[in-house]
């Protein structure tokens, strides 16, 4: 019989081995996950809805299949959580927003269907910043479930918008979770909770059944204990789907076995504005990467990535939520600033939006050329450790303004991997970020696995 702490400390490979050795069952793993989510997870405001009925059915099926010799692969019988912007039949899908607390959908999101077919067991809908943070939130207290608390320290923010996914994995409530990112929403919670988070190339994973914030920038990706676990989860999630045209025509994901001889780039201004403790962990990580390949310092093409990304999101979000705004539903949102800020998007001229899209076309070309020779660009994961739970972002200069590589990567649909890089100030997690070329997802994840074979930061144990 596994203890809750055994479960919390285990990665995907360990859990899979225990299942196949008969040391535990999928039903037992689901019960441990439900128990820990209901206590630790709820204390961190990481949970919207537990899904015990569905979890027990899926887990019992997984156990029966394994007993009959049917093995669906590494996700078989493993519990996971899904950010609550993904439709799941039989349960509310709140998008993290109080006015939508009773919203329900008739079909599962594509990624939920795929993970079920891979044998994974859904145990919870996880908390998120309301409406994926697209309404201009300025503080952690911007969610139906309260401010997301970091697994590393509950007085610190878990990051957003995939707050619950990051915290639930970081606290060992689930080994795997689905996050989504339009601009930073997988990477920031991964950094603040000490977990590994992967943002796939735009279009690698279907968004069918997911809340749309920005049709041309939304991505769905895995959050887990390691890059290897992210890759295993991605293999279960990725693939073409006629219901999401962005997925059509993309190459199928093929893992890379490369673990050395990589070509890395760093940015000339990488630590500008980055706090000293984070910069120190970044430089320590660079020493590890230097043992895995060559490192060349470059500068990104000088383009207004953040301005273009911000304009695209403002207009697409205003369009996606036009009826929501007009109906006055935003008045019921938690953060006061979320109730009106998106109105500005309704007044943004079409010419500004089109100019942002024209600049994006240029950015795609120039960024693609600049990164063509490299497997990954290495940057600090975030400028600081997780901020206090009551921090107002606008009172912290450049809180969201320094991540040029994040703006560029999200605008242009590039894959990115956030990796734990050791403790910074107050013992809180820091991270390094890898950004790859379009469709070079496997290379980025191969680099991440090579880095984690040389480091132990991703093995930091969740709090007991």
């Amino acid at each position, binding site marked *: 019989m596994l203890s809750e702490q055994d479960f919390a400390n285990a990665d995907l490979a360990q859990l899979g081995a225990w299942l196949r050795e008969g040391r535990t069952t999928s039903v037992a793993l689901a019960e441990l996950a439900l128990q820990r989510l209901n206590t630790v997870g709820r204390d961190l405001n990481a949970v919207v809805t537990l899904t015990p009925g569905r979890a027990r059915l899926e887990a019992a099926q997984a156990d029966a299949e394994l007993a009959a010799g049917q093995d669906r692969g590494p996700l078989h019988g493993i519990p996971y959580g899904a950010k609550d912007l993904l439709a799941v039949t039989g349960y509310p899908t709140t998008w993290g927003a109080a006015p939508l607390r009773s919203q329900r959908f008739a079909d599962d999101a594509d990624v939920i269907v795929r993970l079920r077919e891979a044998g994974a067991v859904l145990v919870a809908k996880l908390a998120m910043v309301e409406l994926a943070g697209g309404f*201009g939130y300025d503080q952690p207290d911007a969610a139906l479930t309260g401010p997301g608390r970091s697994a590393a320290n509950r007085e610190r923010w878990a990051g957003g918008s995939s707050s619950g996914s990051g915290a639930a994995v970081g606290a060992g409530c689930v080994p795997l979770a689905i996050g989504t990112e339009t601009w930073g929403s997988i990477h920031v919670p991964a950094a603040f909770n000490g977990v590994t988070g992967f943002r796939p190339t735009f279009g690698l994973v279907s968004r069918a059944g997911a809340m749309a914030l920005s049709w*041309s920038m939304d991505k769905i990706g895995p959050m887990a204990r390691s890059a290897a676990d992210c890759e295993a989860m991605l293999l279960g999630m990725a693939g*073409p*789907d*006629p219901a999401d*045209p*962005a997925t*059509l*025509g*993309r190459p199928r994901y093929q893992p890379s076995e490369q673990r050395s001889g990589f070509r890395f780039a760093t940015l000339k201004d990488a630590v500008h504005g980055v706090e000293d403790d984070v910069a120190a962990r970044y430089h320590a990580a660079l020493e590890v990467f230097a043992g895995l390949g060559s490192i060349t310092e470059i500068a990104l093409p000088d*383009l*207004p990535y*953040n*301005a*273009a990304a*911000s*304009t695209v999101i*403002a207009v697409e979000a205003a369009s996606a939520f036009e009826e929501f*705004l*007009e*109906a*006055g539903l935003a*008045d019921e949102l938690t953060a*006061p*600033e979320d*109730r*009106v*800020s998106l*109105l*500005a*998007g*309704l*007044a*943004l001229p079409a010419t*500004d939006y*089109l*100019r*942002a*899209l*024209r*600049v*994006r*076309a*240029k950015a*795609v070309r120039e960024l693609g050329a600049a990164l063509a020779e490299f497997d990954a660009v290495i940057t600090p994961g975030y400028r600081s450790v997780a901020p206090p739970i009551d921090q107002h972002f606008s009172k912290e200069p450049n809180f969201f303004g320094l991540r040029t590589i994040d703006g560029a990567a999200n605008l242009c649909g590039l894959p990115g991997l956030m990796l734990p890089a050791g403790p910074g100030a107050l013992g809180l997690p820091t991270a390094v970020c890898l950004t790859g070329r379009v469709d070079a997802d496997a290379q980025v994840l191969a680099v991440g696995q090579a880095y984690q074979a040389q480091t132990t930061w991703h093995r930091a144990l969740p709090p007991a």
Partner: protein
Amino acid sequence: MGNLNNAEAAARLALAEARAHRPLTEAERELVQQRIARDLAHRAELRSVPLANGDPPDPPFQPAGPRGGA
């Protein structure tokens, strides 16, 4: 440019308020104004990128649907 931006910012604020389902409070109006000021600053940044008449947006219109098949 300053006068134009001021006039345009006021026009955008009026449009945003017209689209709201209720009158905005002074504090809410200030929040929307901040977003409009940010949007106008972003446009100035975007206008600094040289674009030719024939430079299209990304993604381009595809009359036959997405490239490639499933």
